[in-house]
Every structure is written in structure tokens, then in C-alpha cells.
């Protein structure tokens, strides 16, 4: 193999710089989108807290949400935060249902540190959410157009025929915490998860979000039907947001497990030096692949 992006490529000079690992539009959008998603998540939790309960269908059946956060007073007189998922109830005091805001205990869905603003302020949460929703939607649309027309989708994100067949082995390797670096390219699981996030999850966030708008419902009633009604759209918006949070956690964990500094530098500068640091870490962590 002679790809100069590859850590396996022999290099006598530790300061030799590899070619671009990520192109500029990818890097710009990656970090801009991260910023948007953080604000959207935190302001979204602020909005959720105004009515911390989720339903299926068109309307709220207030007696049986499928997910609800609330507080109860125990027979002993203590107040406990409860998260109810269907018929299961979990005590989540301090985090969900009942937690401190500015030092004072309060009945609320998600805790102060996770919402924007931290204190209960629905109208402010909405201002942040819609402003960043526009930034997110416009930058996302531009990136999707770039991915389609620059070949990024075809070249880097869509698994080739043989990769589909190797998917099972790739999953097994991931489960064994063996992470290849395919000569600077994404492996098939990476490709699937990135493509899934970019072309399925993020557009779903926009569409389910729009379907909570009564005016947009008048524009596209068929889309609301597709999601199963406004309260279903709200539930799906929440579920896909949760999946995105899980994606980010796994994504960051995998970066930490596979040359975090080199990867971070690659996503910031676009170039990753094939330096002694990267080589040593590579050899330490993945002897089985050398």
C-alpha cells in the first residue's frame, strides 16, 4: 500500500505531512453543525420541559403519555423525580423530573445543565431553537448538495459492493474493539453511520420539527400523516434527537480509541502528520493489524 494517508505507509521523516484527510467543506460543516446541534439540543430540551410528556397520534392523551417526567411526594414526605416509560417508573431525582435550578429544587423535565437557558424560559428557548434551526437547515442543505455533486457521497460515504458483503466482519471487528484505518478511508460501518446521519437522521429532524408547526401542517398534511400526527411527530423529533446524541457519544468514543490527536487535527486542519506520535500509538493499540 502506498497511500500517503495511510499510517501503515512507511515514512522516514516524522514531519512529513500527509495529503488532505478531510476537505475544507467537510471540516467547516462538521464544526459548524456541531455548534448548531448543541444549541438545538439544549434549547430543544428547554422547549420539551414546558410539557415533559410525549404521545403517539394527533393529540395528547394526557393520562397515558409513553414518556413522562414528573415529581411525586413519597409517603415519607420527600419529593422524588420520576421518569415513566410506558408502565415502567424510574426514580430519577436530581436529573429528570425533579432537580435544582439556581440551587433551588424544582419540578422540571431535564436538568438545568442540559437546557438553554438553564432556568425555565420557554419563549427564550424557542428564539434560540428557531434561529439555529435556520442555520442548521441552510448549512445542512448546502453540505448535502456538496456531498452529492463533489463525489463525497459516492467516494467516501456510500459503501461499495464488496463493503456490503464485508459488513458482518466489520461489525464483529468493532465489537472486538479492533478498528481498522482503511488507508485513510472510512470503513463500511463508518460510511453507513455517517450517511445515515447526514441523509436520514438530520433531514428527519427538520421534517419532524416542521410537522409540529400548524401552518406547515396546512402546507403538507400528507407529511404529517406519514409521521402519524402531530404528537407522533413530536415524539419522533425527540427519539431521533436521542439517536443523534448516542451517535455523537459513540463517534467521540471511537475517535478517542483511535489516534484522537491525529483525528482531531485531521478534522481541524485537514492534514494529519504521519508523525512519531501517531505511529507509536498505532503500534501500541493495534498490534494485531500491523
Amino acid at each position: 500500500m502506498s497511500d500517503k494517508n495511510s499510517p501503515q505507509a512507511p515514512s522516514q521523516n516524522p514531519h512529513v505531512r500527509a495529503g488532505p484527510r478531510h476537505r475544507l467543506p467537510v471540516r467547516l460543516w462538521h464544526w459548524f453543525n456541531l455548534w448548531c446541534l448543541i444549541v438545538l439540543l439544549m434549547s430543544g430540551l428547554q422547549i420539551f420541559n414546558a410539557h415533559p410528556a410525549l404521545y403517539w397520534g394527533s393529540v395528547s392523551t394526557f393520562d397515558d403519555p409513553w414518556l413522562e417526567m414528573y415529581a411525586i411526594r413519597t409517603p415519607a414526605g420527600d419529593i422524588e423525580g420520576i421518569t415513566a416509560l410506558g408502565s415502567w417508573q424510574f426514580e430519577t431525582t436530581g436529573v429528570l423530573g425533579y432537580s435544582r435550578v439556581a440551587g433551588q429544587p424544582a419540578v422540571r423535565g431535564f436538568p438545568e445543565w442540559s437546557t438553554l437557558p438553564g432556568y425555565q424560559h420557554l419563549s427564550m428557548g424557542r428564539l434560540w431553537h428557531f434561529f439555529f434551526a435556520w442555520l442548521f437547515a441552510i448549512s445542512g442543505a448546502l453540505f448535502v448538495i456538496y456531498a452529492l455533486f463533489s463525489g463525497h457521497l459516492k467516494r467516501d460515504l456510500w459503501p461499495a459492493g464488496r463493503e456490503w458483503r464485508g459488513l458482518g466482519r466489520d461489525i464483529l471487528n468493532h465489537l472486538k474493539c479492533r478498528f481498522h484505518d482503511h488507508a485513510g478511508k472510512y470503513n463500511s460501518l463508518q460510511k453507513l453511520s455517517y450517511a445515515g446521519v447526514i441523509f436520514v437522521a438530520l433531514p428527519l429532524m427538520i421534517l419532524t420539527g416542521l410537522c409540529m408547526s400548524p401552518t406547515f401542517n396546512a402546507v403538507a398534511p400528507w407529511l404529517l400523516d406519514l409521521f402519524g400526527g402531530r404528537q407522533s411527530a413530536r415524539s419522533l423529533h425527540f427519539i431521533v434527537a436521542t439517536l443523534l446524541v448516542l451517535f455523537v457519544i459513540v463517534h467521540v468514543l471511537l475517535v478517542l480509541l483511535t489516534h484522537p490527536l491525529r483525528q482531531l487535527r485531521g478534522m481541524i486542519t485537514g492534514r494529519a502528520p504521519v508523525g512519531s506520535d501517531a505511529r507509536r500509538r498505532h503500534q501500541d493499540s493495534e498490534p494485531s493489524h500491523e
Partner: protein
Amino acid sequence: MSERNEDGLSRRALLQRAALGAAALGLSGCDRLSQNDALLNLLGGAQALNMTAQRLLAGDALAIEYPASMISPVFRPNGSTDPQTDLYRGYLANDFTDWRLEIGGLVDNPLSLSLAEIRAMPARTQITRHDCVEGWSVIGQWTGPVLGDVLARAGVQPQARYVVFHCMDQLNGRNFYYESIDMVAARHPQTLLAHSLNGEAVPVANGAPLRLRVERQLGYKMAKYLHGITLVEHFDDIQGGKGGYWEDRGYTWYAGI
């Protein structure tokens, strides 16, 4: 020292106190940002975009209407549910027989309509979904004259840009609830002055004797306990100047999303 300077000082002192308060509360960076007026104006700019984009997409499209089988067993009330103002208690005491809806401002023929007269007008009945800004929804059947027809009777003058709704309830014990919509929303065929909910007179909790329905917007636009409608060119001089009770308290004037 001039009055202006005194104002400046007291304002600065207030700001300092607010800053100290914020620090004492241990507000995060974003919380402090949320108290910055310039930033709020910037964030609020998305409201204009929302409205422009949605008006462009939606045109006159009708809000979804549902079958009777989907009517919610209870139409959850919110905000005022049992107004305590003398004004309202007085009318409620004799079942709104002496209540009148006054329509004035920039109109050729100011109207004063009794509940009986409003009930006798040609009405539209629609089963629609009500979306609260908090996130929940209920479905109900509303009956009442189309606002556009009532306004046509009053003869709206060309310079009128907004319809302001004056209510008989106070949420905080001081300010009467009010709302405003523009002529596009006011002339939408589903915008009603509803006197009936699910075939019965609108209950007190839901806005008796008359409430507004603006079906493509959120619940807080749909003023309850109506007693006056004025047509105006601008609403800067009404209460907080933002066009509604909740708008004066930070909510966006356009509530289509």
C-alpha cells in the same frame, strides 16, 4: 443634574443589580447571553424568516380538519380558566345577556353586537387541532361567524393592517389579555369568532362567551373572553407594544410554528 442623567444612573444601578443577581444565581454563559438585548433581536430575526417562508409556502391553504370521532374528550384549557375581573364576573352573572362585542378603530361602520346577534349570523363549523406553545395538542369542534365576514360588515379601511382583540381576563391581575393578527390571518376562511365548542356554548374555561380561532397558529394567539375588536395601523401604543399579552413577555408575534 438633569432628569436624563438621573435616569441613566438609576438605569445603570439597575443593570448592575441585575448583573449581580445573575452572578449570584450562577448563570451559565448562554443564560447571560439570553439577557442581552442585541442578541435577542438577532435571534428574534428568525421570526421574520419563519413568517415569510411559511406565508410563501402556505398561501391560503386550510388547516387540517378532523372527523368527529377524533374530538378530544376534554378540551384542555390553559391561561385564564376562570376570570375574576369585575368586568367578566358582571357579564357572567347574567349569562352575557348585556355583553356586547364592540368593533371599532379603522372601520367605516363600527359595530356593537350582542351574543344573540352573533349566534344568529351565518356560521362555519370546523373540527380542528389546537396546538399549545407548550407542545400538547387537543382536537375540538368550533362554530361561529367567519371573522372576515364580520369585518366586511364593519367595512375595514384600507390603512388598517392589524386586528386587535381585547379580552376581559387578566392573567397577572393587572393587564387585560389581548392579541393581534394581521389581515392575512384575519381574512383566512377558518379564522372564526367561535361561540360554540363541540356543539355547546363555549364553556368559561375555554373563553365564554366568544373566543378567536386562528387555526394555523399556536394557542396563545386565540384570545378568549373577547369584548372588543379594533382595527389599527400599528400596535406599538397598545400595552407593551408587542401585539399581545405573551408577545409583551417575550413570545414571538408570529406563532405559525
